[in-house]
């Protein structure tokens, strides 16, 4: 069975234990203000245009059949909503200014690719991680990759925002060794403001995984001036006490490496536009949480 993904990243060290290969699936139900992978939002391929590389030769325009690319007073204009992601323009562009995010691949091929690094996983306690986007936007495909992975004896992690039907979590539960579960903001209204979705469903799923004895790492993106609040830190601390299955609480300090992609893929939402969190800030947040009595913190300051 096939699904759509936008990257396979070997030697991933940030998405679960050991050396891992992370699969980035397309599609996400949330629109977090700080998202560094905006190319994951849509469940279909999308065109990316890097204005800085473009030499305005317009060879792409000549092959575009939908009118998504056109010339306007010597400048290339990209009408992203007209693009059908046929990819013809990409072959034409001599400067690699155009590229597509998203390609279809079968679960079996993905796992075969991942298995090239099995020896590294075995020596380091690593494995495969499904990330995105939200993998459960493609629940059957996710299920299929997990099944294939387990058949091949891989340790499996899934990075999830928690916003999917409980039944989906129930289905994948026996196939997942570790849930990297995002916790972004307390209070449903605030959550909606920051991510465009409420958080009741997310918390219910977290609760469900906890009672199902899943192995959970709570991952908390912390964005300066957005959710680095005492109230939020208190909520994280409470979760670390209330949910026995949380084996680790990990902070994910905001970075802005993905900022340039917003414009390139023609998103109407602008990037957050604030500087990345510093290492000192990160240390301070960990220290604050430790002071509040948060359990199982990843980093001991």
């Amino acid at each position: 069975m096939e699904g759509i993904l936008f990257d396979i990243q070997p030697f991933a060290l940030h998405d679960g234990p050991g050396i891992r290969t992370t699969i980035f699936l397309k599609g996400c139900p949330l629109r977090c203000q700080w998202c560094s992978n905006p190319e994951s939002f849509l469940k279909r391929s999308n065109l990316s245009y890097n204005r800085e590389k473009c030499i305005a030769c317009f060879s792409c325009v000549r092959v575009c059949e939908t009118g998504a690319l056109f010339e306007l007073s010597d400048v290339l204009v990209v009408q992203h909503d007209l693009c059908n992601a046929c990819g013809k323009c990409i072959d034409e562009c001599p400067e690699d200014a155009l590229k597509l995010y998203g390609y279809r691949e079968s679960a079996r091929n993905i796992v075969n690719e991942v298995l090239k690094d099995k020896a590294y996983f075995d020596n380091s306690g690593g494995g495969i991680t499904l990330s995105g986007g939200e993998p459960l936007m493609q629940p059957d495909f996710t299920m299929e990759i997990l099944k294939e992975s387990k058949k091949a004896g891989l340790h499996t992690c899934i990075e999830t925002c928690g916003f999917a039907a409980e039944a989906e979590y129930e289905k994948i539960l026996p196939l997942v060794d570790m849930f990297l579960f995002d916790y972004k903001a307390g209070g449903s209204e605030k959550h909606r403001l920051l991510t465009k979705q409420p958080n009741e469903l997310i918390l219910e799923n977290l609760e469900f995984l906890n009672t199902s004895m899943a192995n959970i790492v709570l991952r908390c993106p912390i964005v300066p001036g957005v959710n680095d609040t005492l109230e939020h830190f208190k909520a994280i601390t409470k979760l670390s006490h209330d949910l026995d299955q949380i084996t680790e609480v990990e902070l994910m300090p905001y970075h802005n490496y993905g900022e340039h992609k917003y414009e390139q893929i023609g998103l109407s939402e602008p990037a957050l536009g604030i500087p990345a969190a510093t290492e000192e800030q990160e240390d301070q947040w960990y220290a604050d949480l430790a002071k509040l009595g948060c359990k199982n913190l990843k980093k001991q300051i």
Partner: protein
Amino acid sequence: MNKNPDRQRILQAEPDPNQMTSILHEFTQTYRSFDPEDIEMREAACIRAQLKGRVRPVEDGDLFAGRMMQMPIGFIPQSKGTGMGYCIHPDIDSQLLIKPDLTSESRKILKELLEFWQKEGTVYKSRRKMPDEVTRVVPSELYYLESGIAFVLYRMSGIQLNYSKLLALGIPGLRAEVSKYKSTVQEGSKAFRLYAAMEHVLETFSELAAYYAVQVLEQARHMSDKNRKVELENISRVLTNIAHKRPATFREGLQLIYLYNIFDGTKNYGRMDDSLADLYHGDLQAGTIDEEEGIRLLTSIWQLMKSRDNRYDTRLIIGGRGRNNEEKANRVAMLILETTRRVKENVPQVALRFHNDQDPSLYQKGLDLLATGNTYPMLYNDEVNIPSARNAFGVPHEEAEHIIQYGCGEYVLNHRSVGTPSGVINLLQALLVTMNRGIDPSTGKYQGMPVERYVKYNNFQTFKDLADAYKEQVEYHVGPLALQEYLEYKHAADDNAYLLSSLLMDDCLARGKAIFDGGIRYLGGTLETYGNTNTADSLVAIKELVYHQKIFTLDALNQMLKANFRGYGKELKMILNCPKYGNDHQFADRMYGFVHDHICKTTRDQAKEVGLDSYLVVVINNDANTVMGSFTAASPDGRKAFSHLNPGNNPVGGADKSGVTACLNSLVKADTTLHAGAVQNMKFSKEMLSKYRRQFESLLQTYFEKGGSQIMLTVVSRGELEDAQKHPENYQNLIVRVGGFSERFVNLPPETQNEVLSRTLN
């Protein structure tokens, strides 16, 4: 020499050029006074005669004697530049000829001497004797000045002496052994003359040590600083002892190794942890030394090595199987690593061998050094290299355990074999010339195999036609290169006994033969290969686009290359998008295997043809990849004209887009049992070795388990390198691994800096 009345005058930091001229004159007279057949005693006398010009005083802070220069004209087995016996220093102009205080009389003498040695020098003689079948195919040595497929190098390198034996016997013991052998052979025989000359040079060595001892004592007498005075007296005592006795302490051992090494003119230091193990252990037992003192002594040796400035050599090997007492040797190895950590220089080039049963703390200490930005130790995996060497060299396991590297990573069997790289081949140039049916696209001139040989390849109608023609082109060059190597050794033996090296190389003494006269146990040679990865990637693109997809013809491709891809942006993109070696991609990696296996086997099979015990490829790298690249036209892997060739065994910079594991997976696919060393450079971020040390260790462990032979690491950030190009003044201490050597980044020429920058940072 201690009897020499004018010793005070000789020992000055910078001898007067006229005085140097008269030393050279005397040296030449000494040479001429011998019957040309009497090469052994002539060499012994010449070694003695040139000492006056070589010896320099102990400098402030030195804890050992051994500041000796190479003569502008003299006898040295391994010269700077090209040389292998009687040679002229490549810098003779700046060293001597243009000195303002050189009198016209001296200048006249020097001119005559130069004329004489340009006839009589070992390399000059060998060149003249080289037969047409070599010079017709590989006429040039100037790989750094002109375009060409293959070049010869006249030189000798990579002698690794038996320092364990030197320390166990000391000079008197070694002499006794020589004398014993001498008593068993007929007086006047060649062997007798060899032994007698060996006795003579050992006597000269003792005199040299004794001479230094007196000099240093003299310095001590005038020393006002009390501590330094005591130190100088210690140096003197050590020298007196090694002149006449077997070394009894770690310090004496170090002095003996260093002085013998520089006296002989070899440039590598063998398995120092092994050779010094007993002496260091003895001192520790006796309580006469502690770790700090050990480090202090080594630090001084490291500084002396630095002053010799042999950045392409100065190898020193620690760890590994085949050491006499691993536990004792490991203590010295730890000391060596700690000294390197503190001194942080580009020499000595410390290589750490490791195996599954070795004390892991040594390996861990090695990683600690790398994590703090050292480029040493380089890591060598015994589990792969010993079986590989067994196969490549065709020797039993016990011999293969003694595989060590010298120079830029060429393997030799410690004091059992030699393996000078006397040829270089640019495989990419071989392909480009072949594609153009004999025309070198960078010059438009004919190059390589004769034009009639192309006829059978049907105008390259199939990929196989082209690949077969490429193979023939390579083979056409390798045969003469092998023959040149063998003859070069033979010519060297016609004129030189290399007494000091022969004394400590197996089995010269037992056989009564000089090293290249049948003395050395395994007479080996090596061939440096360049552009291996570019060639493989080029063949992939050709096969895919010309023969499989038929997007353009080979002639059209030749046009694109001639235009350096200008106006062919779309085609270049297709080429760049073809699979590339280093991505764990089956097609690309198999093509690399084809190129690799072909050149390795072609080379290996030449050994028996020409009479060598082994003739093997080395996929090493100094800066020849950059230099040769600058004469090589654009290539079908998408490489622009005159840019660098890939370094060592590495993927083309930036082509390994699938991450570090994929790159390592590709690396381990190349057969390690066919060559005498292939080097891998990798750059890692600092974070990787600090924050992710556990994962990093797993990464290396897995690589080595999968068959990884060795790795050379530089820990650095890309930003740092870029900033260092802009603000060199802030980065004087930033050392990077270039391939076969390490260097301060800011000292590298811009092209090489860019090459380092182009390598993927993991």
